[in-house]
């Protein structure tokens, strides 16, 4: 599943025309779903009004060819609620929400938060677990169990702990209660998650190498582990490359692939010419430039 970046003009203003091209590129190159705006889309650097406009474009361009989920997490929970209602109004297929930012809510507060959000809409809800980025605040297997019991529209989780025990515990609980529950690795960690019941992954590098992402998924589903390991390693190298000041390096890499999407909004840096040159050497070394599509 491709979670797209947010194209910006040189003055950091929204570039909706390029966003249309980008969504179209992902659908055309095999995305099974479009997800926007994850953190790689600089969600927290966009105003609520801007997020609504981009979300409307994502739904319009995709036009039902693949599902569209909208990440609704904002600093203020009231903004999150508003974005969720908006996603439902414009015809999105699902919403995604992380545990609240900045605060360290108790487990009970997390439960109340997701229940309030999930019952405010009829859309499917995908929760987002990212304990390493949020001071250890996490969705445990036990919290997952309670939320599945309470929310019929709680259909999946973006699982970004990248930790064997945490993933196994959520999978063990969730899939026993709701076999169709979609556990989606936060980035392309497919080899360690698919055999545990993982349904797939969101993609960090899909704007660079959609073919590689598809091949990894196919190798994992087929149980071809030697191939999966080789491809997983390549994607792990790419994750190491791009997560530095994420997503500025990713946007820098997209320039090299002929799909420029503009700068990154402060306080995140924009990839310099030197950084782009380094990214080029890495992509060349991994054979990405020869095996992946160039341009739109």
């Amino acid at each position, binding site marked *: 599943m491709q979670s797209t970046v947010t194209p910006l003009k040189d003055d950091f203003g929204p570039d909706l025309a390029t966003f249309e091209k980008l969504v179209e590129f992902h659908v055309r190159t095999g995305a099974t779903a479009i997800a926007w705006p994850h953190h790689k889309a600089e969600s927290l650097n966009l105003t609520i009004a801007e997020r609504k406009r981009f979300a409307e474009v994502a739904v319009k361009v995709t036009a039902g060819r693949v599902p569209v989920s909208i990440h609704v997490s904002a600093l203020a929970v009231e903004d999150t609620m508003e974005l969720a209602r908006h996603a439902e109004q414009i015809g999105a297929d699902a919403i995604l929400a992380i545990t609240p930012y900045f605060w360290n809510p108790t487990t009970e507060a997390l439960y109340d938060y997701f229940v309030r959000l999930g019952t405010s809409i009829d859309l499917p809800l995908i929760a987002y677990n990212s304990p390493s980025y949020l001071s250890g605040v996490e969705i445990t*297997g036990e919290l997952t169990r309670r939320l599945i019991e309470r929310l019929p529209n709680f259909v999946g989780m973006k699982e970004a702990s*990248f*930790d*064997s*025990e*945490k*993933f*196994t*515990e959520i*999978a*063990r609980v969730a899939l026993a209660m709701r076999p169709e529950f979609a556990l989606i690795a936060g980035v392309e*960690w497919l*080899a*360690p*998650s698919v*055999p*545990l*019941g993982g349904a797939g992954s969101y993609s960090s590098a899909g704007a660079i190498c959609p073919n590689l992402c598809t091949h990894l998924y196919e190798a994992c589903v087929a*149980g071809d*582990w030697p191939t*999966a*390991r080789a491809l*997983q*390693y390549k994607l*792990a190298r790419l*994750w*190491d490359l791009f997560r530095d000041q994420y997503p500025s390096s990713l946007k820098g890499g997209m320039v090299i692939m002929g799909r420029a999407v503009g700068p990154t909004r402060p306080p995140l840096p924009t990839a310099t010419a030197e950084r782009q040159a380094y990214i080029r050497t890495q992509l060349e070394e991994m054979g990405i430039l020869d095996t992946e599509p160039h341009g739109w």
Partner: protein
Amino acid sequence: MTKFIPGLVHTPVTPFKADHAVDFDAYGRLIEFHVRHGAEALALAMHCGESVSLSDAEQRTLLQFALDKVGGRVPVIAHVSDSGTGIAVARARNAQDIGAAAIVATTPYYWTPPPAMVLEHFAQIGAAVRIPFLILYSPAEMPGTRIGTDLVLKLISRLDNFAGVVDASLDWQFMVNIAWTAQRARPDFQMLSGTEYMVSAGALGATSMFSALAGVAPRLVQRLHQRCRKEQYFEARPDQEAISALRQIVKKGGFAGLKAALRIMGRDCGVPRPPNAALNAPAQTQVAAELDAFAPLRDEPRGW
């Protein structure tokens, strides 16, 4: 020769008597139990064996006792970690002298040395012996000192006997980096899973597994390991989930939870040494009730 693939490595607890002395009678029975129930190697005394609560002399005595008891039936890996590099070096030399098959060491306790000194710590321990040398990475237990691929690559260049990393981080990025980066520098280099989460670790390239829960559920652990060794990861999922569930029951009580589970399975190894407390009566009752209701344990051996 650095290639060392110990397979399924059981990590026994250390039994104590009521006066906190090591209970060698129980230890002998426990070692025998592990060897008869699927251990392809033993590693001792690991943290689950309360190594940090044992004096240097006790650690040496325990190792000698275990080597005598095992009698060469399976390799014995000696855990030699300490705060001081010199203490760990001496322990490593002793382990080699009395017949350990390999040594394992983790980052120094308490201190958080700069990277160059962490490298020096491991380099001196590894250089003190000719037998295979493994590093244990357990950031949840010791978050102050990180191990990265840089350190591993430098150790590979300095130590011919540096054979692998035992991963207890459970961190997929760390595992894939170790498995691939280190193996490009030394093809025989191994990534070993430091816990029973072998499905993910195996899919990322781990070849062996350390298991503390093997003392509680050796058949379940062995079945998981055998399936993962054949790369049957989808088939291994039910056993992986069962072991994860067992771990959640046991770990609530820490080391005391593990010893409580052993007692419930008919293999009394006493309670932990201070400062780790025994489970209180209600907690003990709860663990007993949860294990009693835990269906996968019904096929597991009771008693010694």
